């Protein structure tokens, strides 16, 4: 994974290539944000996750086991790549992102920075 990320960072992002937006769920709780993205057809080594400043980029190349000489007659997934970019808010800690990728579903956990954890403020009654 780390090697692939390094390669992906070295090459310029290919913004000109059309891509599918993967369907995504984003859930926020007190401790941080959990993001799920559906990237069907992307093997683990073709998935690239980047956090640069406050931008999170999810990219994946679809690699299907296509028989030689196959002619497509109907395609609903008509582009071979997914890309989606999110802007992270300041209270999130991009250094502590953890990711799981299982059968085409990406699960990202982005915790909130220590100082942004909710604190209950006691109200003093004078």
């Amino acid at each position, binding site marked *: 994974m780390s090697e692939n990320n390094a390669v992906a960072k070295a090459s310029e992002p290919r913004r000109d290539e059309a891509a*599918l937006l993967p369907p*995504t769920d984003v*859930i926020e709780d007190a401790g941080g944000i959990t993001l799920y993205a*559906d990237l*069907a057809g992307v093997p683990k080594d073709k998935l690239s996750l980047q956090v640069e400043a406050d931008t999170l980029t999810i990219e994946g190349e679809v690699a299907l086991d296509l028989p030689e*000489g*196959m*002619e*497509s007659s109907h395609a609903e997934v008509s582009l071979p790549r997914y890309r989606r970019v999110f802007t992270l808010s300041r209270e999130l800690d991009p250094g502590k992102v953890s990711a799981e990728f299982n059968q*085409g579903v990406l699960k990202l956990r982005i915790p909130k920075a220590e100082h942004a954890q909710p604190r209950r403020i006691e109200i003093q009654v004078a």
Partner: protein
Amino acid sequence: MYYRSLFPRDLFAELDRLQRELQQSVDPNPSIRGLTRGFPALNVGGTPKTVDIYAFAPGIDPATLDVQLVKGMLTIAGERKIDPVPEKATLHIDERFAGRFRRVVSLPDDADPNAIEAKYKDGVLHVRIQRKEEAQPRRITIQ
């Protein structure tokens, strides 16, 4: 055009799609099944020897997938359960499909119902059906 696509695209791809859909909507004989898209998204293709169907159904236990072939109709059905939103959490974006699904594809006449295999990998179900032997092109030698 009338439904949100399951796989939305970026702006340029969207403009391209818009152009194609405009073209389709002025077509006087649109398909009986319309332009709707369901889950899982399907790609269908073939070679002279096989018919290949790809169903993009990520995050499903393959044991719960139900693939049936009845009278030339291939049915892919199942249920996708996704983690419930915990209490005191906020759902900001909710785009992923959840619940029961069923899609049906009619196979060409030369598909062999006895030679069918299905594989699930990286969230894609690949169903491959061999074409019947007698439907294969044969060169006839001239005496």
